[in-house]
């Protein structure tokens, strides 16, 4: 009897976010794997069987770019219907978790290790939409007194 593999969508903008995301790939090696990122060249380095989907890059001052990005992310989610979404950021990952939650996906946010003093802006905004909300720095984790993400290790 074969069990249908879970479908995972792993989201990160190009550069450091994507490098960090890739270092966690043993966590989803048993899944049907899709990546969503900003650089087409990443297709060459993916694990066998994994698919790359593309989204434009944009920061929050580029309103048109951000709107396009949000639509592109939404379209990818409608097309793929992933069971689980995981992201290290930045904006594309925020949209993926936010829209993904509406569609019933389970969601994971791993805040970038670059954010050593405080969570990233998207990392804070995504709290409500992340079922598993993680930081890579123990001193940024939540405590009994203060709400916060969990710390269970870093990508290094």
């Amino acid at each position, binding site marked *: 009897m074969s069990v249908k593999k879970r479908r995972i969508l792993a989201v990160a903008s190009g*550069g450091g976010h994507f*490098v*960090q995301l890739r270092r966690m790939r043993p966590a989803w090696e048993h899944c049907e794997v899709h990546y969503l990122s900003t650089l087409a*060249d990443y297709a060459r380095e993916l694990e066998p069987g994994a698919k790359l989907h593309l989204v434009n890059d944009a920061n929050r001052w580029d309103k048109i770019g951000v709107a396009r990005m949000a639509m592109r992310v939404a379209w990818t989610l409608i097309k793929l219907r992933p069971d689980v979404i995981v992201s290290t950021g930045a904006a594309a990952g925020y949209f993926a978790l936010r829209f993904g939650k509406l569609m019933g996906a389970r969601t*994971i946010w791993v805040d*970038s290790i670059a954010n050593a003093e405080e969570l990233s802006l998207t990392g804070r905004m995504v709290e409500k939409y992340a079922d598993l909300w993680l930081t890579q720095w123990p001193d940024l984790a939540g405590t009994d007194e203060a709400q916060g993400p969990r710390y269970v290790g870093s990508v290094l």
Partner: protein
Amino acid sequence: MIFVTVGTQLAFDRMVRVIDEWAGRTEPRPEVVGQIGPSDLVPQHIDHRAFVEPGEFAELADRADAIVAHAGMGSIITALTYGKPIVIMPRRADLGEQRNDHQLSTAARFAGRPGVFVAKDEHELPGILDSLRGLTAGEPIPPFADPNLIQTIREFIDRGQ
């Protein structure tokens, strides 16, 4: 070869200008390949381009004797993975080089890690470049994240329907 990179988004002329000037006055002339981002700056003494594709980025990092970069995680993790010494100089938000000052904290957190050397600004960088040949990297790090992080995510993935 020295591989210079400013990351995938913004130029970082304050760093690139200093490296170019250093290369111009250093004998024998060092071989420098620079990925300098979208910039009007035209370096005179180093091989340069705005962007490189990720595959070529990895090849350049692998071929380099040392990496000089903004304090971005992609650059740092790449250097650690290939076991190359890396000099990092943080971008500053007040100079419009970044939207916030997270690279200052990244540089502070990674200072002292084997193979990672911090130039806090353009004044400190030339001295470190002069000593580049003497810098050594730590052992290459494993290609994957902390096993506990991977296991936590894997268990979360498997828990659902």
